[in-house]
């Protein structure tokens, strides 16, 4: 409810970091020889960014809310990928059919299974591994790293050490072609999924009571408890949701690479850490922008100077930190 009448002062959204994305994209334009290549690279960068956002968003929210850095987050990514792989390989015929609807009908249960398993494991993980060490950062780091090691080994026990091939569903292969410009169909899908996830998170955080609790809890969880809310339950829910999102990200990433291996979660963790540091620990919006920036930079530099591609994102992180030491959208903490 709002008092009628007067013009009310409303806060402005800090738009400067948003501008970074077009800035980086346009800065790359003169460096890349042809426009079609630039478009392809930009699409690739955005798609990759979206997938990293999906994987990283849970981690940054968990840290912002619970002050817990889950170094085992990569395990949920990997598990999501493996579970989806098992489902997709079992549903081989609808996956290989040339109809988009059949494909999606096959992917949907794979995604749901991946998210459900990853989320359930997240619940168990929070209870068994994380809860006993709330507030003790040193032990948290050690224990979650331990969890990562054990999880990776268990994946090897269940699925074996071989790399599993996971071809894309038939209707998602190939590219949309417009003249000289070719954009992979899968990348377009990734962008849509990423936007959908971001929109969903945004709506939940800004329009629902739970979202209100989470935003308040990120700032001052003690005060939220003093208002009568059992914020511990919200913690657990966010942890599980974050793990489920990691699982979803894992599925998308696995289909993108068309292979699944036991270290894939760990491999992408460095990028995820860079993204959440750039974005500001605890900020979903920052994570979104950070992920897109990292995706774009990785693809542009990967094309222009492949040798320093991996290192370029670390340099990006250093530059952002020099500008804003707490990340793009620092969360106001108590």
């Amino acid at each position, binding site marked *: 409810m709002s008092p009628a009448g007067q013009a009310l002062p409303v806060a402005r959204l800090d738009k400067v970091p948003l501008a970074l994305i077009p800035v980086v994209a346009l800065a790359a334009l003169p460096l890349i020889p042809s426009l079609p290549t630039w478009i392809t690279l930009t699409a690739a960068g955005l798609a990759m960014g979206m997938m990293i956002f999906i994987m990283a968003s849970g981690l940054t929210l968990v*840290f912002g809310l619970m002050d817990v*850095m889950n170094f085992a987050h990569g395990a949920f990514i990997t598990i999501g990928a493996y579970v989806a792989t098992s489902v997709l390989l079992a549903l081989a015929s609808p996956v290989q059919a040339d109809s988009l609807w059949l494909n999606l009908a096959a992917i949907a249960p794979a995604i749901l299974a991946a998210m459900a398993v990853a989320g359930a494991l997240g619940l168990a993980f929070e209870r068994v*591994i994380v809860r*006993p*060490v709330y507030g003790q*950062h*040193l*032990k*948290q*780091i*050690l*224990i979650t*790293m*331990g*969890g990562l*090691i*054990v999880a990776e*080994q*268990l994946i*090897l*026990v*269940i699925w*074996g*050490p071989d790399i599993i091939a996971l071809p894309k569903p038939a209707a998602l292969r190939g590219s949309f072609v417009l003249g000289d410009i070719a954009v992979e169909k899968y990348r377009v899908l990734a962008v849509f999924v990423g936007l959908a996830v971001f929109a969903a998170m945004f709506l939940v955080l800004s329009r629902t009571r739970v979202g209100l609790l989470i935003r308040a809890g990120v700032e001052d969880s003690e005060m939220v408890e003093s208002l009568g809310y059992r914020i511990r339950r919200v913690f657990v829910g966010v942890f599980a949701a974050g793990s489920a999102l990691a699982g979803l990200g894992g599925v998308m990433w696995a289909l993108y690479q068309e292979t699944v291996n036991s270290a894939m979660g*760990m491999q992408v963790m*460095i990028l995820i*850490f*860079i993204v959440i*540091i750039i974005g500001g*620990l605890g900020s979903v919006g920052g994570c979104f922008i950070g992920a897109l920036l990292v995706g774009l930079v990785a693809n542009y530099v990967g094309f222009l100077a492949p*040798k*320093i591609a*991996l*290192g370029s994102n*670390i340099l990006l*992180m250093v530059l952002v930190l020099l500008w804003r030491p707490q990340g793009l959208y620092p969360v106001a903490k108590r």
Partner: protein
Amino acid sequence: MRTLLSGDYPRSRALTAVLLLILAGLAFAPFVFPGTRSLDVAAKACVFILLVASYDLLLGYTGIVSFAHTMFFGIGAYGIAIAAARLGPTWGSLALGSLAALACSALLSLLIGMLSLRVKTIFFAMITLAVASFFAILASQLSGFTGGEDGLTYKLPELLLPGTKLLQAPLFGVEINGKIVSYYLVFFAAAALFLALLRVVNSPFGRVLQAIRENDFRAEAIGYRSVAYRSVANCVAALAASAAGILYAVWLRYAGPDTTLSLDIMIDILLMVVIGGMGTMYGAVVGATLFVIAQNYLQDLMKLASDAAAGIPLLPALVHPDRWLLWLGILFILSVYRFPSGIVGSLRMRR
């Protein structure tokens, strides 16, 4: 004995027995465990004891979690490797390489210390992870300088080469050649540096570190500038890690990203220091030795178990030799929860 151990006794009969066993085993390894493989395991144990002890200084005594420790290990190893490969296998070039590596480590560690020890634990851990990855990428990309993914192989001064015979006749059934000399160089250097680290943690400086680890805020209030102390601790730990790298490079006559810089080694160090016992120094001795033995011999045992369990669902996969890290990981988690002082702590409690 008091000055040798800087007053830091094992304080447990069981622990003393274990330590003496390890010491004896390593001191007489060429004679007691003849064969290339066992000597290699012994040398690796010496190197990792030093490396893990240096990490214990950081984690156990100062309370800093850093994922960049393998970077300093690698700097030491590459220092020797690059010097020996590019400047020729002379004592002079080895000395130059060592000094360059140590100087580089000192500078880098002080830089990292000053810049990022002001931030919170978790942030620091993540930053060191990024820095270590960056360094590993650098090492594998600058192949002209570092030999890239394949690393560098090189010769050493004649005294240290396996081909060099020192005595005509074998001593106690073992041929005394350059390899033995190398081994004892590694052994004595590692032992000396370990005792030096023991001295550091038992000095007034070491006590201040422990005070800071317990309560940073209070230590500052009493007047110790905690960032300065932690930077120095970071530096000392880095130097010791580089020294371990130097010894490793001398032993292997090879240095590459996978033997020194990989995240797997960082995780191994974490496992060793926690299972052995954080904040005890002796934990490094026990943890490193256990790990190295397990890495090389446990797998044979596990293979037997795995073959025996064939037919039972899942069990063969669980005890498959490649899954030894699973069990170590579980042990690691239990150690963090229940046995913060690891094996050493448990032995001490028994008395």
